[in-house]
C-alpha cells in the first residue's frame, strides 16, 4: 500500500463532519467578534464568507487554537480545539492573509524549514518542500530569495508552506489578495486541485464572492460576528432559480394557470418572472400555455448568483437585527 493509498484510506474513514461549533462567542473587551455561532461544516471545500470585520479571521484563529473562545465549544476533526490545540494544529495547514515570509531566505529553504518545524525528518522535509513548490508552480524559482518575488509568487510560497506537512485541512485567508487576473485565476485553480486531487479539505476565507462560488462546495456566511447562513452552494443556488418569460396572448389567464400549480409569478415590464426549484416548472409552463392559449415568445432560465443570494441574506439579517 503506497503512502497515497494510506492517506486516501484514512480520509475515507474521516467523519464527514469536519468542524462543529456550538454557541461559539469571542469578545475582545466590549467588541463582539463572534456571537453565538452554531454550525456544522462538512469535509469539503468550504467558503467562509463575510465583509471585512465580519469575524472570519477570528473564526479561523479559534479553529487554529491561536485564540480561546469567550464561550461555546469548537470541535475540529472531532477534537475540542480549546482542550487539544496541538493535536488539531498538527493536521492543519494555514495560509495567512498578511505577509508572513522570511525575506532573507530562498523559497526552498523557507518551505523546508516549515516542514521541519512541523515535525518532518530532514530528508522528507526536503522532498516535500520540492514537491509542494513544484505543485504551486515555483519549481524554477525555488532557489531564489523570497525578497525578489512578486506578490503572486509570494502567495504561492505561502500556499506551499501550508501544504508541506501533508495536512488534512488547510485554512486559506484571502489567498487571492493582490494578485493580477491571471495569477488570481491560477491560484483558484490550484486551490480547487488541492481539494479534488490531494483530497485536502479547504476552508477559504474571502470577501470575494466569485472566488467562493468558483472554488467551494459549501458556504458559511458571517456578518457582524453572527452566522447568517450556511449550506451546500448547489442547494442554496438551486433554491433561488428564476425563469423569465415573454408571452403573446392572455397573460392573466397564463399567470392564473401557473399560480394554480403553486408557482409564484411576478409580472414586470411585460415580462413574467417565475421562481422555481426543480425542472417541473418547464412542464407547468407548457401546460399553462396550452390552458390559456398563450404563445411563448422567449424563455430564459437564470440561477441567482451567490452575490444576489448573499446580499439578500445580509439584508434580511440586518432587518432582523433592526426589528429585534
Amino acid at each position, binding site marked *: 500500500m503506497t503512502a497515497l493509498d494510506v492517506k486516501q484510506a484514512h480520509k475515507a474513514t474521516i467523519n464527514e463532519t469536519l468542524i462543529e461549533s456550538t454557541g461559539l462567542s469571542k469578545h475582545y473587551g466590549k467588541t463582539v467578534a463572534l456571537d453565538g455561532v452554531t454550525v456544522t461544516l462538512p469535509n469539503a471545500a468550504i467558503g467562509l464568507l463575510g465583509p471585512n470585520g465580519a469575524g472570519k479571521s477570528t473564526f479561523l484563529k479559534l479553529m487554529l487554537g*491561536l485564540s480561546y473562545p469567550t464561550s461555546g465549544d469548537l470541535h475540529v476533526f472531532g477534537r475540542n480545539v480549546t482542550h487539544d490545540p*496541538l493535536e488539531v494544529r498538527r493536521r492543519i495547514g494555514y495560509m495567512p492573509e498578511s505577509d508572513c515570509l522570511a525575506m*532573507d531566505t530562498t523559497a526552498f529553504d523557507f518551505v523546508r524549514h516549515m516542514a521541519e518545524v512541523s515535525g518532518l525528518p530532514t530528508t522528507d522535509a526536503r522532498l516535500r518542500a520540492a514537491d509542494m513548490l513544484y505543485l504551486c508552480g515555483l519549481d524554477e524559482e525555488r532557489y531564489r530569495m523570497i525578497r525578489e518575488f512578486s506578490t503572486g509568487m509570494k502567495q504561492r510560497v505561502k500556499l506551499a508552506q501550508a501544504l508541506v506537512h501533508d495536512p488534512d485541512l488547510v485554512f486559506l485567508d484571502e489567498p487571492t489578495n493582490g494578485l493580477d487576473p491571471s495569477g488570481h485565476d491560477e491560484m483558484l485553480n490550484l486551490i480547487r486541485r488541492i481539494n479534488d486531487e490531494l483530497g485536502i479539505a479547504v476552508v477559504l476565507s474571502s470577501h470575494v464572492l466569485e472566488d467562493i462560488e468558483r472554488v467551494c462546495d459549501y458556504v458559511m456566511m458571517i456578518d457582524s460576528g453572527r452566522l447568517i447562513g450556511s449550506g451546500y452552494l448547489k442547494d442554496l443556488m438551486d433554491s433561488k432559480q428564476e425563469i423569465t418569460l415573454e408571452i403573446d396572448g392572455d397573460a392573466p389567464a397564463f399567470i392564473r394557470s401557473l399560480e394554480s400549480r403553486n408557482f409564484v409569478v411576478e409580472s414586470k415590464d411585460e415580462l413574467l418572472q417565475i421562481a422555481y426549484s426543480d425542472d417541473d416548472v418547464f412542464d407547468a409552463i407548457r401546460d399553462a400555455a396550452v390552458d390559456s392559449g398563450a404563445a411563448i415568445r422567449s424563455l430564459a432560465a437564470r440561477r441567482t448568483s451567490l452575490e444576489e443570494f448573499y446580499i439578500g441574506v445580509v439584508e434580511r439579517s440586518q432587518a432582523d437585527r433592526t426589528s429585534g
Partner: protein
Amino acid sequence: MRSYSAIIYHSWRRALGIRRKWTAKILPIILYSAAFIPVIGFISVPAIIGIDGFRFEPSELFSTISLILLVFAAAASPEMLCDDRRENVLPLYYSRGMSRWDYLAAKLLALGGIMLSVSLFPALLLHLGNSFLQDQPFHYLSSNWEELFKILAAALLLSLFYAALGLAVASMTERKGIASAIVIGIFLAGSAIANGLYEAIEQSWSFVFALVSPMDIPDGILLLVFGEASSGSLPDRADVDGPWFLLSVLGFVCFSGILLYRRYLRED
C-alpha cells in the same frame, strides 16, 4: 523534538551568518576569534618559551569572555527574535504542532547554546592547555577534576544570564539595531547607575546595588563559582557573599521570563 531542532538550527544560521551574505559573518568570526585566540596564546606562548608549571586561571578568562558574551548577546538575540516578528512569521510557527512556549524555549536554547559555545569551549581548551603545561598532565587533570564542574557551572550561569536578558530586550522591538543598542545600553547604564548609587549611599544594605548591576553580575557569578571576583569590581568592593549572585541571576532570568511571557505567551 524535530520542531525544536529545526528552530534552533535556523536560529543559529541567522545568528552566525551561515548561508547569508558575507557581512553577516564578520561579527561572529571576530567574536569567536576574540574568545579563542587569547586562549591559544595563553597555552602556546608558555609552551614555546618553555615556562614549566605555568597556569592561567579560568576565572580570569571568564572575566574577559563575559565582555565578548555581552557583545554576542547584543548581536545574536535580535537575530533570533526581531526578524520573526517584523516579517510576521510567528503565526506560521504557532499554527503548527507547537505552542508559543515551545517557540520561546527553542529560541532560549538556541541563544543559550551560542553563548555556551563562546564561554565553555575556550575555558575547556584552557583547562586542557593548563594540564599539558604541567610536568604530569594526567595527574593534573585527575587532581583538578572539580575545576571542570566549576567551568561548566560558570559557563552555564553566564550563558543563561546573557541569553535571558538578551532575548527579553530583543522581544521589545522589531528593529535589530535598536535591540542591540538597548542591550548594550541597559548593561552600561544599569551598571553606571548601580555603581554611582553604591558610592553615594553608604549603608549596610548598599550591597544590593552589586546584585542589580548587569555588568557586575558576571563577576558575581565568578565569585559564586570560583570564590574570587575581579579586583576592584563592585562585587569585590561590596563584599557580597557568592550565593547572593545565584539569587540575582535567577531574579534577572525571572524578570526576563515575565517580559517574554507578556510579549509572547499571553493569549490575545
